[in-house]
């Protein structure tokens, strides 16, 4: 026999098995989801959810697909949050402090309340990565924010109106493109291919009968 718990979906009470995630509990209650459901595996941030346990004043945030229901859980999903996404030309921007001041000046209005960090569904140190962004330390901001799924829970709780996931997105692109070291062996290989270095090899393989390719495949050397 399944153990049942009471949950309140948008305030309405439902009895659901206690081993379900919030997302599955909504479906158990009869919802056919369109909004607020994406990868169902904790990677896409579509199912940002706010909840409170009866009797507790703390407002909690989570991903509905990664969180088990609890008894007396009051649940509201947040399928869309109006983040501010500034547009820019990645070829023209420079990885300096200037760019944050220009595109996301509100980050300098951070009051240090740390509500963003407390709200993070990925347990990231959000306020810290915003601090890195303020100082133009985009490599650190990129590393600290790397696991962000852009669900927007941080921004929903921010009194300064910061769109943290978008700030981090910009920092990661700046880091990936301009700050992280370039890869020489990659650039060399692209040039070799353009120069036709491998054309003959590939064409020779493509022209071989299957039996011969099987031989080659089954006896190929495998790097340890």
């Amino acid at each position, binding site marked *: 026999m399944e153990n049942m718990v009471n949950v309140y979906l948008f305030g309405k009470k439902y009895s659901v098995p206690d081993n379900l*995630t919030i997302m599955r509990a909504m479906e158990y209650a009869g919802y056919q989801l369109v909004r607020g459901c994406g990868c169902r595996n904790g990677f896409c941030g579509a199912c940002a959810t706010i909840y409170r346990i009866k009797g507790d004043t703390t407002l909690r945030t989570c991903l509905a697909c990664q969180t*088990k229901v609890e008894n007396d859980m009051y649940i509201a999903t947040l399928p869309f949050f109006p983040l501010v996404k500034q547009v820019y030309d990645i070829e023209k921007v420079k990885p300096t402090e200037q760019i944050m001041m220009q595109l996301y000046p509100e980050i300098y209005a951070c009051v240090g309340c740390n509500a963003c960090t407390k709200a993070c569904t990925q347990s990231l140190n959000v306020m810290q990565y915003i601090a890195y962004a303020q100082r133009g330390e985009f490599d650190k901001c990129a590393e600290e924010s790397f696991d962000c799924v852009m669900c927007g829970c941080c921004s929903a709780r921010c009194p300064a109106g910061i769109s943290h996931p978008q700030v981090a997105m910009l920092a990661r692109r700046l880091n990936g493109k301009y700050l*992280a*070291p370039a*890869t020489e062996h*990659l650039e060399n290989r692209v040039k070799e291919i353009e120069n036709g270095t*491998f054309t003959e090899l*590939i064409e020779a393989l493509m022209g071989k009968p299957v039996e011969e390719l*099987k031989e080659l495949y089954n006896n190929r050397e495998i790097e340890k």
Partner: protein
Amino acid sequence: MYGKEFEESLKAVAAARDANIAYEPARMTAKEKEDLLAAYHPDYKKSEFRELRVGANKGEALPHELCDMLEAKSRIKAEDIDLDHPTYDVDVLIIGGGGAGSSAAIEADNAGAKVMIVTKLRIGDANTMMAEGGIQAADKPNDSPAIHFLDAYGGGHFAAKRDLLAKLVTSAPDAILWLNKLGVEFDKAPDGTMITTHGGGTSRKRMHAAKDYSGAEIMRTLRDEVLNRGIPVIEFTSAIELILDENGKAAGAVLMNMETKEIMVARAKTVIIATGGAGRMHYQGFPTSNHYGATADGLVLGYRVGAKLLYADTLQYHPTGAAYPQQIFGALVTEKVRSLGAKLVNRDGKVFMHPLETRDVAAASIIRECSDHAEGVDTGDGLAVWLDTPMIEKIGGEGTIEKRIPAMMRMFASFGIDIRKEPILVYPTLHYQNGGLDINVDGETTNVKNLFVAGEAVGGIHGRNRLMGNSLLDIIVFGRSAGKNAAAKAKETEVGKLTLSHIAKFDAERDAAGIETNLVSPKLLPDYARKFN
């Protein structure tokens, strides 16, 4: 948190750990693999397939669930649709907002085309976002596109279309460079050298990664770029029927708002299907690692206007889906876990296979271990084998798991399992649609003009099995290529009068075959809501 019922088996696994790390299991011979697949791989289970009775692939045996959708009725009646006043009129219409669709959009935009993406959920709600392990490219000095070709061709059972595969491997390094220049972060050594690992079936370490968020890192960057360029993205809007023009060329799609059900028409000079995979069809009742919208829509849309399918009978079951706890049943446990050294171990703590066999072989081997070998662990919801994650910390040093596979660590930690200290339970999960629409090397379908396909909806790039890391690669390579080619084709295209006459033609064929069905397609979303009446 493992219950008491797992205690004995966990002890056996822990006791054998050091010996298992040192032990190098033999790889299977070609014959052993062949026999194993025939006996245990789901693709070989005849009762799960039936003959398709209509369309370009009539007579082929395909999964029941796919046959049902391919033979089903249109969601619309042609006479209800006003084709003379389209809501949208563009050069290139892209159906699907995943990695392939976004790559295509960026390149079509680069080429100066007026491009638009329609997607039934949000841009980025796609299997791309969930790809964890990495992306292949032969860019190291000891590697070459030719070796990559051989690995993929053999791994796909010598069935790939050779020209498509050659394009995949020779465009791979440029795809990585393109992503890196867009700002995608890759795991690199301080001197810029890519940190690369093996995947199942690779003969060189050519798996590039961004921790175990490789797909997410690629997808969010592509999405950001699409938005920076101001490319229109029409979200929560699905394509439910393709539109041809009077000359039989693809010329747009009928669209439906997923929330309001409003019907609209998009007219286009060329169309790119980038709708992704089919895990949510739950073939053979398997759970899936796929995102919510993976319902083979593109195959249905293309098939109804006459496009051919290739290898639609072959699916990839990822050997390591999470089997416990029940809340994450079927979720992907990235192959990178095995790349980093974790081995597959049975109930008694015995390593039963080389951890880096190709996915189909690994899946079949696990199924055999749990069935005929009776060496599976009973999870309460089914059988499973152990994937001994603590090996990774012993081999790579403490902290390796947190640094290289943080998403896996987080997923299991949410449910009280510390994968640094305890192994995890896995069983195959429906992961990838090997087959799809048949295309030429330019990405255009072989028999419907101006209809392009990219990404998981394509069949033939990989053959009958796909190697880890070649899918993230194919969405970029073939997405970019489809975008460029569709933009070029749009320039020379004059759209004729629009028509939906293919619906009546398909209906007539269905009637002639004596098929009675109330189903409509494409499926759009799975239905998981509990039913009360």
